[in-house]
């Protein structure tokens, strides 16, 4: 069975908007990948600026709601994609292609794609009274 990966694209919030050429190149890559064995897109989206977002934080037994903008990290998640691959290596290779498009079509942009395998609720192991964190399958 294919492994699912969460790809999180992080960059500074003042990086500006992506050029149309980049988005067209990404659409083309996505279409090519959907026809191949690696990189089927499950779902993807862009996230609202942190200025329009909130956090609900638990610390020392207290709940606090904090409204954005969030400025304590230089880069924030701006978009994500859930994709299917046969291995972690294939996922990294796909992220490299995706970032190469950024390099080509958006010179000067700085940021990264973080590649994390994901596990759906039915994949979590239940044992005697605790839910274990999932163990990544060998890639």
């Amino acid at each position, binding site marked *: 069975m294919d492994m*699912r990966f*969460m790809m*999180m694209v992080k960059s500074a919030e003042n990086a*500006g*908007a992506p*050029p*149309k050429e980049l*988005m067209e190149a990404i659409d083309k890559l996505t279409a090519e990948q959907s026809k191949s064995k690696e990189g089927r897109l*499950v*779902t993807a*989206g*862009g*996230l*609202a600026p*942190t200025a*329009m*977002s*909130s*956090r*609900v*934080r*638990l*610390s*020392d*037994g*207290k*709940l606090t*709601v904090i409204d954005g903008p*969030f400025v304590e990290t230089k880069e924030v*998640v701006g978009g994500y994609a*859930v994709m299917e691959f046969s291995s*972690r290596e294939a*996922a*990294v290779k796909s*992220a*490299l292609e*995706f*970032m*190469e498009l*950024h*390099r080509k079509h958006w*010179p000067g942009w*700085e*940021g*990264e*794609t*973080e*590649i*994390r*395998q*994901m*596990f*759906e609720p039915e994949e979590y192991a239940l044992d005697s*009274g*605790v*839910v*274990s*964190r*999932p163990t*990544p399958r060998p890639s």
Partner: protein
Amino acid sequence: MMIKHSEDLKKLPKELSDAIARLSQSESPPAVLASGALAETAASSRVRIADGKLNVTDGPFTETKEVVGGFAIMEFKSKEEAVQSAREYMELYRKYWPEWKGETEVRQIYGPEEITFETGRMELRAELKHDKK
């Protein structure tokens, strides 16, 4: 919804997982389109572009105290409802896992129908830009 916490946590108490499961069995459960837990950063990678150069870095990633450990994509009528739902979720953690420390970040998701390329760059449609709700 992105749930962030430090990576040195290991086990979710069963009382908490039971309470979370009950959320989805309530009379009007929130619409969850997708959810999942993310592998530890030790098993993850990053592809970074800076100064026109691409670099692949393997985890663990330790430069931030907390990392995204799980997420849920959910549908609500307003941002207020989304924040209220995150609050209820975090309340379960407070009750059943009091020593846990972390947060749920609530960010609206935009799909292709909410963006425009009128200016040659990707932008939110004008009517959404000033909507702070």
